[in-house]
């Protein structure tokens, strides 16, 4: 029987290789969030004139969005791939080997995390190349990449849970717009304290995605904001702590080998 580490590595490698061989899984998570950021930055630059707006560059403000949006794409791709494995019987093939249940989940999520960090480096490079200054410096970049890994872990595990639970790629794709609603009713385009519509401000305040965005944003435009980082890391860790047991349980139910 192979070591658990070798099993995790083999599953993670497959996850990365198969994603890298699908341009449709690689290009949209890179291009669409950046395109949306550029469009928003061009159209909403005037927002920076509002009193209390934390920066005079909307591009710097908006750079946080691709990190979360890319993670949502990763969730959908990871979930859809896993659901396809269930539908085609590939999970049965894996179940017939000495693969440990948890090694499948950890390997799959490790692949998602690797891709998530790769995406984060790309967004960061686009931002820096566009003249965005990174207020928290090189250490902030390290923290940002760690946070991108954590976000990928949390969202990727949620995608895995949906895949094991439903076994249907179509269902996961249908849920994708719901996840995007969370992004759009957050502080994505405006700081929460400057949102003028009351119900929107309440929704954005209750929405954990706002705090994820604000953690990334704080590193870019403010430097070191302990509260923003604590809330961002905190909500993401909670999401991971909820997703991991759900995904583990759903995996055990799905892999019903004796």
């Amino acid at each position, binding site marked *: 029987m192979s070591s658990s580490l070798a099993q995790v590595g*083999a599953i993670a490698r*497959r996850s990365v290789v*198969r994603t890298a061989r699908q341009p449709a899984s690689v290009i949209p998570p890179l291009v669409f969030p950046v395109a949306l950021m550029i469009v928003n930055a061009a159209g909403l630059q005037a927002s920076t004139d509002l009193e209390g707006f934390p920066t005079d560059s909307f591009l710097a403000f908006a750079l946080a969005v691709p990190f979360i949006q890319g993670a949502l794409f990763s969730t959908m791709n990871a979930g859809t791939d896993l659901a396809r494995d269930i539908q085609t*019987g590939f999970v*049965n093939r894996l179940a017939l080997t000495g693969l440990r249940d948890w090694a499948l989940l950890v390997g799959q999520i490790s692949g998602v995390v690797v891709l998530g960090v790769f995406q984060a480096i790309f967004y960061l490079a686009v931002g820096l190349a566009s003249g965005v200054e990174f207020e928290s410096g090189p250490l902030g970049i390290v923290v940002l990449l760690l946070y991108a890994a954590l976000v990928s872990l949390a969202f990727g595990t949620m995608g895995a849970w949906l895949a094991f639970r439903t076994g249907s790629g179509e269902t996961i794709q249908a849920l994708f717009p719901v996840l995007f609603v969370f992004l759009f009713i957050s502080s994505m385009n405006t700081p929460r304290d400057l949102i003028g519509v009351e119900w929107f401000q309440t929704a954005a305040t209750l929405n954990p995605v706002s705090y994820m965005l604000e953690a990334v944003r704080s590193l870019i435009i403010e430097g070191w904001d302990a509260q923003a980082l604590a809330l961002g890391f905190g909500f993401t860790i909670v999401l991971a702590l909820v997703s991991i047991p759900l995904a583990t349980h759903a995996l055990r139910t799905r892999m019903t080998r004796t």
Partner: protein
Amino acid sequence: MEAANGIEVLGLVREYKKGPRAVDGIDLTVAPGEIYGFLGPNGAGKSTTVHVLTTLLPPTAGTARVGGFDVVKEGPKVRGLIGVALQEAALDPLLTGRDHLRLQATLQGVPKDRRRMHADELLERVGLADAGDRKVSGYSGGMKRRLDLALALVHMPQILFLDEPTTGLDPQSRTSLWEEVARLRREEGVTVFLTTQYLEEADVLADRVGIIDQGRIVAEGTPAALKAEIGRPSVHAIPHREEDREKIAAFLAPFGEPLATTRDVAVRLRDGLGLTDIVRAVDANGVEVVDLELRAPSLDDVFLAKTGRTLEGATEEADAEEEQKRVR
């Protein structure tokens, strides 16, 4: 059980929720180094049996031991002994053949320094040496089946389960797969549990055959013994004119029991009668026939004798039922 790599099944039952019993109390024994053919139409319970024996499904009742290990209580030990090629090849179209072998070898615990050489050997053996670095999306059905077999052999299993391994293959691919399975038994002493709906496959390959219908084993033995049980040959006449069919059936009736066929008129001959008696009768009745053939009993005759249906007819019935369920 005498040796480690046999299979022993007693009173095995598998029920699905709100469904019929897919497997309804089967008993069977497969000796070490034997090729056991599990023959039956679609929906007979073949794949469900394989899923239970390979630990993918728990049985509802009964016991099964594979390689001396209980499939319920000792699942990981069973999985360590067996190689499995399920009905759906379940390959990743984005990975190459070599990627698959590498993944499977790692998960099966093949030492790292042997993985590459082992993959080369297996690709060579199944005739995929030149295609090993191509993505599976470009493989034909036969190539996918051969890769599936190579994957099942990665950890050199003592017992091999092949679930309809040649369904949908062209005759050449089918023959080469049969040769490899026969070689595995002959040279490596591998025990093979093979399900099939092809009579010829069971006849050519299996040392013993179990015929399953509606979840029950209706006959079991060597192909020769099963056919000998039926004993008498059958005569098949193809009328020159379709309107002569009833007339032929009428004058053939005294020669034996009629057989349900669609293409010709056929009877299972009574003892002591031969083809010459039939030729005389055809002549005497002045009916023209395109072809008159004496056939030795086949496994299809065994299936017919035991179930009242031909294997082909039973498969068509099962397919129609499946289609109806799908439409509903």
